[in-house]
């Protein structure tokens, strides 16, 4: 169906109104929509997040390249998405500082700025144990954007941070008034306060108008809708860093486990897609919170042998990379797996290797996973190895 609404038609209005366009389905035979004020998405494309009461998973099996479309970025909220007027918005920085200050959004935008392409992953990003799981279900709580904002180091100069300050509290203005304590020495190097995502203002679900970004760390600590930063000599021990986002390991509870370990997942072929005999370009994403990915190995024989995948340039620090591996499937049942290696030398462990040192801790569960290719083309998830 074509809608005739083109200023060019002003001059031929009569003849146009006489035209019967109802039967025209060849797009070369009738002008399409003229340029407008905003682009659209094809009506034939229907990508959707997978929503749960407090989170939504990205359809990573449908993505290409390394950028996540902003409206398909995964979501994890603890009190829903607040609506914030950017003109009313203020950020308070206080505590162990000599000059406590309040910044309007327009103040923050004046500071020297920087942009960086980074993944953001929820540390609870795992679902397994069944064969009918898609990549979106298994690992859909990771997404990637180009973020723009101010380096924490730039802003912290303004408030005169006490050298004895070792932590700061980041507090959101959502209904959970989300809080996390952040270790200053580790955060100051790469931490940012960002107001833009993929070229435009942050999206509401991603923290509009201002959020923290701590590259490579678990998503929860990059507090969204940031309204307050309080410097302290010790962590505040908020609910999110004690009751949640901690891992019982052996007879200890591991706390402030911030870096996301290297991980990869094959997104094609995957459940519920069908695989066809012959050449298949196996595709997927790999990332590490500890630096750059330096390799992704692929096994097409259930983990017996491994070969390196091609990694798409540019390979960025603490960013998703797209990997690809050309393979000819003979049609016999087999299992394909991917394994990421990061610049620290860390090799993504198998589920059993992980479980040997700790039960499934709910957070930071990043094992190698597999897809079993059945003779009939079905692709089934596997993490039982």
């Amino acid at each position, binding site marked *: 169906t074509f809608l005739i609404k083109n200023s060019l038609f002003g001059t031929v209005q009569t003849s146009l109104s006489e035209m019967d366009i109802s039967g025209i389905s060849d797009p070369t035979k009738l002008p399409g929509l003229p340029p407008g004020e905003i682009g659209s998405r094809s009506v034939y494309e229907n990508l959707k997040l997978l929503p749960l009461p407090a989170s939504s998973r990205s359809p990573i099996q449908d993505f290409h390249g390394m950028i996540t479309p902003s409206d398909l970025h995964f979501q994890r909220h603890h009190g829903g998405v607040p609506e914030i007027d950017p003109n009313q918005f203020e950020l308070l920085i206080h505590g162990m500082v000599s000059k406590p200050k309040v910044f309007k959004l327009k103040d923050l935008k*004046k500071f020297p700025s920087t942009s960086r392409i980074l993944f953001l992953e929820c540390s609870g990003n795992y679902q397994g144990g069944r064969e009918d799981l898609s990549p979106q279900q298994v690992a859909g709580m990771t997404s990637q954007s180009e973020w723009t904002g101010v380096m924490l180091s730039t802003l912290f100069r*303004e408030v005169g941070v006490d050298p004895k300050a070792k932590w700061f509290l980041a507090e959101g203005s959502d209904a959970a008034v989300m809080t996390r304590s952040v270790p200053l020495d580790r955060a100051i190097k790469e931490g940012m306060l960002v107001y833009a995502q993929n070229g435009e203002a942050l999206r509401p679900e991603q923290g509009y108008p201002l959020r923290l970004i701590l590259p490579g760390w678990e998503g929860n600590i990059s507090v969204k809708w940031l309204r307050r930063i309080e410097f302290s000599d010790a962590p505040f021990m908020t609910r999110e860093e004690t*009751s949640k986002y901690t891992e019982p390991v052996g007879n200890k509870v*591991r706390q402030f486990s911030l870096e996301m370990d290297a991980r990869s997942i094959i997104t094609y072929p995957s459940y519920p897609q069908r695989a066809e005999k012959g050449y298949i370009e196996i595709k997927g994403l790999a990332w590490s919170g500890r*630096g750059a990915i330096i390799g992704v190995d692929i096994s097409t024989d259930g983990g017996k042998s491994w070969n390196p995948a091609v*990694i798409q340039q540019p390979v960025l620090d603490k960013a998703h990379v797209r990997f690809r591996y050309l393979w000819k499937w003979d049609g016999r049942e087999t299992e394909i797996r991917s394994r990421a290696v990061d610049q620290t030398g860390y090799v993504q462990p198998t589920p059993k290797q992980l479980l040997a040192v700790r039960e*499934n801790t709910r957070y930071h569960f990043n094992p190698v996973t597999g897809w079993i290719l059945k003779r009939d083309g079905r692709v089934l998830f596997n993490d039982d190895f």
Partner: protein
Amino acid sequence: DVENNNDYRIPEDSYETIYEDRSDWPDSFGWGRPASQKEIDSLSIAIKPDGTGLPQGSGTVAEGRTIYAGKCAACHGPNGVEGPEDVLIGTESLFQQDITIRKTIGNYWPYSTTIFDYIRRAMPFNAPGSLSDEEVYSLTAYLLFKNQIIDEGKVIGPESLPKIEMPAKKFFVKDDRTAGSNPTY
């Protein structure tokens, strides 16, 4: 052979170096306005483990029981264990490799101050920030009592709360993972 295809490149240096040369930066840009003590006080609701930030007031188990029944039980269950939302009460040790045991205030919360802080900022979920400080003290007292951490008669206030030793405290350690080719997962 695929080996030669790995055309990747390790970033030469880490990102913070972008602003290494700040020689032409002023000591301060001066943007933003000074925060008044009044606005700091009105916003800074966070409580520290040593009790810093706790407001005046106090609460009792008995009052907490009443408030809980009216404002919390619908989501957390009449006894704090039935859900549908988070289980709040339970004293069984988590460290018996029995994954059916739920994390609760009694077996998993390392600091008593977190209870006050979290309830005040985020609960009840449908009306966060609606409780008075007295109500929050009472709910904190009630949940501590139900988790067998304090006696039923104990009054909870800014002095007493931070002194309460939580059963789970001794288990908490900082991240002990190591990166590298021989990592501790």
